[in-house]
């Protein structure tokens, strides 16, 4: 069977000693930043992206992927132990996870999260392996009009499914697209919107933007109000869940995995939405919804499985179509480009060992994460005591070397400071930075496909509507946009993210 052969190719790549090491390093780092509240996977991957430049492409992507799904595991530890989401996707886990910990059941809560995550990770790995080849085959038939419409759909749904004002998010996309176009025009060689800076001829450095608007802006946000983290739970004993626990968590884990896998594939969906949706679903399905908020194990099992499943299936559009579903995937595309690989359907056929190696490494990584998180939980509790302000200089020093080493360009360092300030300003204005990064990555591709499509059609924009696939994609985007602006949906949309706050 193809699936088995492919996974075999992947496993033989993932099981090379160097790749095992980078997979471990990635999951370890992921757990660490997942445990630490305030430092997210987007900022970390942006910071480490330049460092991976000197590694083999497979190793670097395996490591970066590990950081992302590893953070989903680590985030739950913080949520359960100190009632703070270590990661935004663990926000709902704080509701029942922390209550379980207060009742002396921190161990079972952590075990539930880990078992759920592992199960979800395993299933999601197979879903990726099964879904990737057919999607790649479809994508290879896409022409420029289809790609243009697909990107429009990706951008629109990423707004519809995200949190916050839709108008502002749309504006952030457009700014991202515009910033992505800065630099030399590929068709004519004219410098565009460089405002006299020769250094901008090659465009704005992607890593500077990502480190600035995610890394630096995040540090500044943390500095707004510095307070101590209270850790009431000193040690965690008795990790083993009881037989009743196992029985109670089985169905929620299964449902969370399926829901998370589905939501992860959608652009803009990803781990955060999946965990909130899973919690809402478990509460609705429960015969005793009043237990939720008071330490219901289903409230930990469902969301934790869902966020891990979604974190992994969000790799599907990136790996098969070259389209990022969320900012982390936008960074992964950046990592491909830094390595000189054009992300898209050709990766699977031209570099099967890379493609399947990444997928196989995910399962391996999930196995490592169970070991890292359960027996070593005491270590992570200690990590939580590290005062946050010690980390700022470290983050700044790593980012600075990293950003400089990509192009050996001093200008990129100044750009970090500029985008840090801009990112913080946007945060203050209530604008989410994620759509900007998606727009920034997609800007040049969107324009190129638009121009090509217009050349093909001799300047007739109807080409986007005359082709059935393109028309369908555009209609779905339009429908998504109309739906989120309906007043009843708009209200519901806000509620999803503030469940039981």
């Amino acid at each position: 069977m193809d699936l088995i052969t492919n996974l075999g190719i992947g496993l033989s790549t993932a099981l090379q000693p160097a790749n095992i090491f980078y997979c471990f390093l990635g999951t370890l780092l992921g757990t660490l930043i997942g445990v630490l509240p305030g430092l997210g996977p987007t900022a970390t991957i942006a910071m480490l992206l330049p460092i991976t430049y000197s590694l083999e492409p497979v190793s670097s992507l395996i490591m970066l992927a590990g950081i992302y799904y590893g953070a989903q595991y680590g985030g739950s530890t913080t949520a359960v132990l100190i009632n703070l989401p270590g990661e935004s996707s663990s926000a709902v886990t704080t509701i029942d996870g922390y209550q379980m910990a207060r009742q002396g059941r921190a161990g079972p809560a952590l075990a539930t999260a880990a078992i759920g995550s592992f199960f979800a990770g395993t299933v999601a790995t197979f879903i990726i392996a099964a879904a990737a080849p057919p999607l790649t085959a479809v994508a290879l038939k896409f022409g420029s009009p289809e790609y243009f419409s697909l990107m429009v759909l990706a951008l629109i749904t990423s707004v519809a499914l995200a949190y916050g004002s839709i108008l502002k998010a749309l504006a952030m996309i457009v700014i991202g697209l515009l910033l992505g176009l800065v630099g030399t025009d590929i068709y004519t060689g004219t410098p565009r919107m460089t405002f006299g800076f020769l250094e901008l001829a090659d465009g704005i450095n992607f890593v500077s933007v990502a480190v600035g608007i995610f890394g630096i802006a995040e540090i500044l946000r943390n500095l707004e109000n510095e307070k101590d983290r209270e850790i009431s739970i000193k040690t965690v004993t008795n990790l083993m869940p009881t037989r009743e626990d196992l029985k109670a968590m089985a169905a929620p884990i299964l449902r969370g995995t399926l829901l998370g896998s589905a939501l992860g594939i959608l652009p803009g969906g990803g781990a955060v939405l999946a965990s909130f949706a899973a919690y809402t679903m478990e509460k609705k399905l429960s015969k005793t919804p009043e237990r939720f908020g008071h330490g219901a194990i289903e409230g930990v099992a469902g969301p934790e499985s869902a966020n891990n499943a979604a974190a992994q299936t969000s790799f599907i559009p990136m790996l098969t179509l070259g389209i990022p579903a969320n900012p982390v995937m936008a960074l992964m595309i950046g990592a491909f480009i830094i390595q000189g690989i054009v992300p898209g359907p050709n990766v699977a056929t031209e570099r099967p060992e890379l493609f399947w190696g990444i997928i196989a490494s995910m399962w391996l990584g999930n196995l490592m994460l169970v070991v890292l998180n359960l027996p070593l939980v005491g270590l992570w509790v200690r990590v939580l005591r590290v005062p946050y302000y010690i980390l700022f200089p470290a983050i700044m020093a790593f980012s600075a070397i990293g950003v400089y080493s990509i192009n050996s360009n001093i200008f990129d360092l100044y750009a970090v400071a500029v985008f840090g300030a801009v990112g913080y300003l946007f945060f203050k204005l209530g604008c989410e930075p994620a759509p900007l990064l998606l727009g920034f990555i997609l800007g040049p591709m969107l324009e190129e496909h638009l121009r090509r499509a217009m050349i093909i059609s001799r300047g007739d924009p109807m080409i986007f509507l005359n082709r059935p696939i393109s028309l369908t994609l555009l209609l779905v985007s339009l429908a998504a946009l109309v739906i989120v602006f309906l007043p009843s949906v708009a209200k519901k949309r806000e509620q999803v993210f503030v469940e039981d706050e």
Partner: protein
Amino acid sequence: MTINSKDAAAGVLFILLGLGFGLNAYFTLDLGTNIRMGPGYFPLLLSGALLILGVAIFFHALQVPDESWGAIPWRGLFFILLGPIVFGATLQGLGLVPALAIIAFITAFASQRMSLLLAIALTIGLVAFCVAVFSWGLGSPIRLFGPWMQALGLGN
């Protein structure tokens, strides 16, 4: 009349950015035709969209009550943003070791809780760690000590 100052400011910012990018594209770039789009075509299209979104956000702000902007960490802003700028200005002249020490030491003071002693200890630790990882581990070609240091008779 209520006005949401955050949304209004965002709206104004988007309008200004839309105008800035749009005028730049219109006056300095070739727009081309529908068949062969010039370098200015798509940017002008996007700027127009940004302008419209900015106006919509601004008018929406007039119907929403104001909200608090929250605290602004001026001290943090100053030290954190100064770090990469000074690092950039000194890296090629002083070399990696002094530039790293500078950025670590400057950004350490972003937090009000930092003490001088801890900042010094952190700086030494970070420089040692970064040199070990980047120069020795990853083989980064950045010079440890630059020409300015050699002029002073330090380093090699």
